[in-house]
């Protein structure tokens, strides 16, 4: 199972823990993540400014993957959303596709629509499957409960995301948490948006959104909130202190990426999984997994 590894802009610079743990998990489970050095921004930040241009650069990335003959694996949900939406749109709109290809000629590329885009989590769930993962679990995380945060661009719009999970009642991330032996929390604000897209325009509004989930998860006392997107991470981890002030209540919600959780269950240590870079973590919890050597 080979994939063109699409890191996007944020992960390789600001969320090395996500990248590190993902690579480790992939290696352990037999997924080969191939780095295409010409991958650049997926186009998501450009949509609001110039939709057409954002499609051009999305298509460029897709064309590179097509050339390499590999499906794309994304870590960031915004990248996943941007690329899969572009893929879906251009596959079905011949006129738009030819306009895009006119522009891509300038850089010697062509988009044909023969490629696939899948989020890392989707690859684990669909392509690998829970059984294959279960085989490799050496240290079940029984007794712990984690709250999944699906986020918005992982499963919506359903058409572009390939209908991986019913939008109103998704299961994939929850089942992936449970395959580690931990319990996956089902809670009222589970499907809430993190507010990341509004952070730049109106921070207070974004913090209110993030606060809705942090407040509930804090109250329910889960061992952690599970991320699959760096934008969401910015809101729940990076903004947690500010949200604390806004809600006027103490928040202790450890935030970690799914591959970090899975990595622990696969037998890796916190150091290997980049936990050093996690800003809100449960040190006591992690102590149990520290390796002697």
């Amino acid at each position, binding site marked *: 199972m080979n994939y063109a590894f699409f*890191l996007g*802009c*944020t992960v*390789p*610079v*600001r969320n*090395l823990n996500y*990248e*590190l743990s993902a*690579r480790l998990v992939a290696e352990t489970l037999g997924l080969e993540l191939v*780095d295409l*050095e*010409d991958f*650049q*921004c997926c186009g998501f*930040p*450009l*949509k*609001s*400014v*110039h*939709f*057409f*241009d954002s*499609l*051009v*650069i999305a298509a*460029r990335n897709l064309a590179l993957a097509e050339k390499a003959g590999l499906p794309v694996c994304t870590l960031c949900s915004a990248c996943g959303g941007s690329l899969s939406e572009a893929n879906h749109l251009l596959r079905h709109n011949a006129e*738009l596709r030819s306009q895009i290809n006119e*522009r*891509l000629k*300038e*850089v010697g590329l062509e988009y044909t629509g023969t490629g696939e885009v899948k989020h890392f989590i989707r690859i684990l769930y669909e392509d690998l499957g829970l059984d294959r993962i279960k085989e490799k679990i050496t240290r079940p995380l029984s007794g712990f409960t984690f709250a999944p945060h699906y986020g*918005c*661009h992982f499963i*919506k*719009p*359903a058409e572009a995301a390939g209908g991986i999970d019913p*939008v109103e009642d998704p299961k994939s991330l929850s089942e992936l948490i449970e395959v580690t032996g931990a319990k996956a929390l089902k809670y009222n604000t589970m499907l*809430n*948006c993190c*507010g*990341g*897209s*509004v952070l*730049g*325009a*109106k921070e207070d*509004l*974004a913090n*209110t*959104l993030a606060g809705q989930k942090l407040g509930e998860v804090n109250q329910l006392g889960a061992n952690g909130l599970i991320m699959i997107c760096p934008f969401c991470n910015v809101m729940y981890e990076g903004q947690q202190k500010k949200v604390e002030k806004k809600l006027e209540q103490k928040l202790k919600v450890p935030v970690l990426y799914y591959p970090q959780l899975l990595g622990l269950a696969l037998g890796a240590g916190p150091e290997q999984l*980049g936990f050093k870079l996690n800003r809100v973590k449960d040190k006591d919890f992690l102590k149990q997994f520290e390796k002697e050597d």
Partner: protein
Amino acid sequence: MERIDLKKLDPEFKHRVAGELGGEHIKKCFACGICSARCPIEKIEPEYNPRKIIRMILLGLEDELLKEEFLWHCSTCYTCQESCPQRVNFTEVIFALRNLAVRKGLAPAGMAAAQNLLSQQGRMYEVGDFENEKRQEMGLPKIKGNPEDYQKLLKK
């Protein structure tokens, strides 16, 4: 509220929005209101109301709408889009409206920054020697960073 003369508004505006990428289905709306009912932003900030935004487009309230700050408050959660019985694709309508606002010079200051960064370096965050060193320390491969294509593709 002051009474508006309907004839002073621009009936072509809705067709212009429909001609924008993302706005194609704007005229399918029959104002059921499910988008506003489910919008998480509307709950916090009632001035941001998808159904009303669509209505403003259809009636031709172009200037009033494009200068609104709340156009930039949509969190692109796609809930409206998933719920709409007519497939208006409202999240994409917001993108279309934002594009129009940018063209008219009405976008908030930080938004155009994305365009500059991408057309110069092809990435939102620069990856220089410092960043690559940090990566190497953690056993991660270097990022090449190839801005040339983006400089070609995104020239203004």
